[in-house]
């Protein structure tokens, strides 16, 4: 937080101009449209977890839109320039920037639930991201989030895991896999060229949850897939998307893209990570300015392919405990994976209980938007997570499945904080559990 507050003392005029230039973007009509569309009806309030939890007006999504739109109006509209008070057009100064940091970084998971429910259709997450871009230009990204991005830029993965530690973990998991499938030829390949699949991980996997790597490796083993991991650029995450620094987001996306080309991978498979999938699949080609030369799908889609084609066979009676599904916002609402995820899980589990609401209407776990990386807002994050915790409790399930390691992390913390007594699993783990070898 110290870095942010220091930066707020005085905004560098050059950086301020660069931030303002982002609002004058004329690359397409999207920004101008959404900046001019909100009517401040306030009906979005109850779609937001922050408002639902804390019942303060500042958390209403329209307020988050308004702070960005008010700056836009001040410098880009007739009334904003000549009668600013009439339309609440605000200058971009230290006070406004400080408010932006709290609202746009500290009070939004960019889950997009308010977007789908907005009476107009304002893309609130997009405007929040635009506001974050402005703050990034002015060097006002919360320090903890920035350090996560710095780690990814400097080391190739957001947890700065040394290569040796990573390869040791992979070798350990390979041995575990060999024991489990009773085949000493079972492998977790590293840096192999010309493979069909270039697989990616969330660094939380090698760091904290290596068994999920083994689970996916078991699925690849069952499908007799030709695949590899990279030792350098295996990180599917891209916190550059969350900190709003497009240059850093582009660099991170390019590192992964170039690594796939270097190893001549035919398909890039995005490991179970909501924002990582979003940032690579939907933003990556735009960051780099061209379509990718290779196919790129998520791990869940790949599992569906394996099931469809008969490359893996599942016995869902092996997963008979009551399970519920947490839909990661960036994969389901913002990624169109609702049916794919249900398809895979209904093939793997015999007792699925949906939360209410679910699917495209699901609540965020509370860890999205980079919240998990921003320790400054831990209390808020765990506070809004109560909505998800209550959903899980009401479902009666004993296992929560989610195809996102950030969600897993937040759900584990909710499990502990709210004493839910459930087990949190990834899709690969539940599918691996149902494999018939």
């Amino acid at each position, binding site marked *: 937080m110290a870095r942010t507050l220091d930066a707020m003392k005085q905004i560098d005029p050059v950086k301020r101009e660069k931030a303002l230039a982002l609002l004058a973007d004329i690359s397409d009509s999207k920004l101008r449209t959404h900046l001019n*569309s909100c009517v401040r009806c306030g009906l979005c309030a109850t779609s937001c977890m922050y408002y639902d939890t804390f019942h303060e007006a500042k958390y209403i999504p329209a307020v988050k839109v308004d702070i960005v739109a008010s700056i836009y109006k001040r410098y880009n509209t007739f009334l904003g320039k000549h009668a600013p008070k*009439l339309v609440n057009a605000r200058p971009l100064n230290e006070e406004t920037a400080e408010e932006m940091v709290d609202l746009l970084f500290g009070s939004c998971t960019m889950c997009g639930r308010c977007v789908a429910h907005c*009476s107009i259709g304002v893309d609130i997450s997009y405007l929040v991201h635009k506001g974050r871009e402005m703050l990034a230009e002015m060097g006002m990204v919360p320090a903890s989030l920035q350090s996560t991005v710095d780690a990814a830029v400097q080391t190739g993965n957001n947890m700065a895991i040394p290569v040796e530690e990573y390869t040791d973990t992979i070798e350990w998991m390979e041995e575990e896999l060999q024991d489990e499938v009773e085949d000493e030829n079972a492998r977790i390949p590293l840096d192999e060229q010309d493979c069909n699949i270039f697989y990616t991980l969330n660094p939380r996997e090698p760091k904290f949850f290596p068994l999920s790597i083994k689970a996916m490796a078991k699925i690849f083993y069952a499908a007799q897939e030709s695949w590899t991991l990279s030792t350098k650029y295996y990180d599917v995450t891209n916190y550059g998307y969350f900190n709003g620094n497009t240059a850093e987001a582009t660099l991170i996306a390019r590192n992964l893209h170039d690594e796939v080309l270097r190893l001549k991978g035919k398909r890039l498979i995005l490991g179970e990570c909501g924002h990582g999938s979003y940032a690579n699949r939907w933003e990556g080609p*735009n960051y780099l300015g061209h379509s990718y030369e290779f196919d790129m799908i998520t791990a869940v889609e790949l599992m569906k392919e394996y099931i469809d084609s008969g490359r893996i066979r599942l016995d869902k009676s092996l997963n008979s405990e009551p399970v519920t599904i947490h839909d990661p916002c960036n994969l389901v609402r913002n990624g169109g994976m609702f049916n794919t995820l249900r398809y895979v899980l209904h093939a793997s589990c015999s007792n699925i209980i949906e939360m209410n609401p679910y699917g495209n209407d699901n609540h965020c776990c509370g860890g999205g938007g980079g919240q998990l990386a921003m320790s400054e807002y831990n209390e808020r994050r765990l506070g809004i997570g109560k909505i998800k915790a209550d959903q899980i409790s009401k479902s009666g399930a004993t296992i929560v499945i989610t195809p996102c390691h950030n969600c897993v992390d937040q759900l584990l913390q909710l499990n502990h904080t709210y004493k839910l007594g459930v087990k949190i699993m990834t899709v690969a783990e539940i599918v691996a559990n149902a494999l018939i070898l």
Partner: protein
Amino acid sequence: MNWYHILALVALVACIVMFLGHFIRLIRLGMPKDKAKAQGSTPAGIRYAYINSMMPQHKESAYLHLPTYAAGIIYHLGTFLSLLLLVYSLINIFTHWAMPEVLGWIIGGCLLISTLCGLGVLIKRLVKRELRSFSNPDDYISNGLTTIFQAITALFMAFPHLPAIEMVYFIISVLFLLWFPLGKTRHILYFFFARLHLGYFYGRRGTWPEH
């Protein structure tokens, strides 16, 4: 033709020119040049954005706030009707067509209902502390002016031969037309582009249409 007729005609032209400016700018800017490979149907997503997703059962902003939603719909219908009647009234300066009295009363009655809805929305903004906390003068001017515009349209339709009402009607219309493209009322245009972008976004990703 009176001076207020001329003013109204000038205001209408100014309003159209300003809206055309907004419209042409948006069209020229075009849609995002998305390099990511689509996994859904963009046209289907856009259709869904304009039709299905606007249904009250699909939006929390509607089904959790049904009275406000209903008032909003009626209020907006009243605005569209008032705008059509303004065009009719301006043409009628030259054609002098006499609207049947019964029709004038029916239209006036309908607009009275939409005026009350507009008033309700305004009162809600004034009364609810949270809503008031992030409202600005534009919200009150846009809501108030549109409501007054509907009210005076109702009166003018019901009593077309009263010169005082006619004059006030055209003066209010002038104010409304000049504010229309400047205040938040310009969402009449931006709304359609917002739905377009939303349908494009969710359509490409395969989120919409929902099955």
